[in-house]
């Protein structure tokens, strides 16, 4: 499903964020990516979303070489992916409801479907009461949960989540993790970047460790081993 072959990424400033990374994530897998601050985790997520292009190497997702996707077809590719960004990236001038609904409008979902699905998603992340608030009138954790709701609302085939619980309390973090696990059980491939080792240990999934741009460890979780 997701395959990286000798991928490197050097930013214009000369910073080498990823060095010769090769990875294979199978369909339906649940993978944690951990590593120190600045080790290149977000860069990896950005490459998978085709927000950035690798300096060298090849990335294949759903059987498609990302470098071969034309500008015209990038939206089609992204629609199959849900992404929670590390800094949320909410539309600042639209309220919570519109932010989540936007992801559905993009795929030209029907009005009725939007009206049903968006409130449901918001209640799942515990924000049903805040649907009319603007992002800047939300707490940090609430913004993060809007970002999660938006990533999940279209039931994507692949979910990329960059630090989805960094601003959440233990209880909320667990709820979100259970949600991701459910979605994964329903068939979605889930890639989660996190620093929360407590959760990583408890979830017992495959853990890929990155250090200074290189994969230094890749451990199958017990849950997968079964």
């Amino acid at each position, binding site marked *: 499903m997701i395959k990286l072959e000798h991928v490197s990424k050097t930013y214009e400033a000369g910073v080498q964020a990823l060095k010769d990374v090769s990875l294979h994530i199978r369909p339906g897998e649940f993978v944690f990516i951990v590593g120190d601050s600045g080790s290149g985790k977000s860069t990896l997520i950005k490459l998978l979303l085709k927000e950035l292009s690798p300096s060298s190497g090849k990335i294949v997702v759903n059987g498609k070489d990302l470098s071969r996707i034309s500008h015209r077809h990038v939206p089609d*590719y992204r629609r199959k*992916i849900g*992404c929670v960004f590390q800094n949320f990236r909410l539309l*600042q*001038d639209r309220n919570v409801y519109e932010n989540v609904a*936007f*992801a559905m409008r*993009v*795929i030209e979902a029907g009005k009725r479907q939007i009206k049903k699905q968006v409130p449901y998603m918001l209640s799942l992340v515990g924000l049903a009461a805040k649907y009319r608030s603007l992002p800047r009138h939300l707490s940090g954790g609430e913004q993060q949960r809007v970002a999660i709701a938006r990533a999940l609302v279209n039931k994507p085939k692949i979910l990329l989540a960059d630090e989805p619980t960094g601003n959440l309390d233990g209880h909320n973090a667990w709820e979100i993790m259970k949600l991701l696990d459910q979605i994964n059980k329903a068939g979605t491939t889930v890639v989660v970047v996190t620093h929360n080792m407590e959760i990583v240990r408890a979830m017992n999934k495959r853990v890929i460790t990155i250090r200074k741009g290189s994969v230094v460890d890749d451990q199958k979780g017990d849950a997968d081993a079964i």
Partner: protein
Amino acid sequence: MRFSSFEYNLRQGLKNIWRNKMFSIASVATMTACIFLFGLFYSISVNFSGMVKKAERGVAVTVYFDKNATQDEIDKIGTAISKRKEVARYNFVTADEAWARYQKDYFKGHTNVADSFADDNPLEDMANYEIYLKDVSRQAGLVSYLEGLAGVREVHQSASTARTLTDFNALVRYISLGIIIILIAVAAFLISNTVSVGISVRKEEIAIMKLIGARDAFVRAPFVVEGILIGLIGSIIPLVILGLVYSNIIHYVAERFDALKSMFSFVSTGDIFHVLIPVSLLLGVGIGYAGSRITLKRHLNV
């Protein structure tokens, strides 16, 4: 695009204007100011041009006949004149009329001088055709044609006045054209500048939309709606202001400066706006549309 998407984009475009009040006001204001100036100059130059045109029409070519020209020859010359396209109107002036006019013009208030001529008309041979032209610049051609006719002794032309007027008219035309072109260019530049600043500020929003999987057309639509609406508002406002100002000013000037009335009559509000409305709308809406499309192109490559 599905209809619900279209409707959504239309609504978003309207909301964008409201959400980005600051920029919307700035854009509309810029557009209003530019189109107002453009309209102002268009009106002034059209009126000025009309004034010069009117002055031109007062310039005449005078045709004098051979001493022994028969009435038949004189009539033939008249027919020849009537056939020329550049002639606005012409009329025959008898020797007596010529002398009467002379006296009126030059001895005005000095009846004693005129009296000294008694009944003796010193301008006996000065019967003539007075020809008024449509376009002073074609005077030279007419003169040389007339000089070639049988029975014509001499063609008198007010050469320096004609040249001055032609030159003056050309100068005014060049200046007006220059100013109007400069104004349109400045307007286009400022408006597209404002639009593109407004869009640049929202480049993060555009990037987010693209990352979620929105197609270019979907991201673009509300902006284009916004651009067109701003263009529309920003050209209707100055048109309304100009309409009010213009009809009031021509009224006021006509009253206050009645001596000028003889020099020129104002171009009617209708005539001015016949041109101004389509040009302004095209300018406003066109730049609003084009400006937002061009600027967006830069930000859609995410």
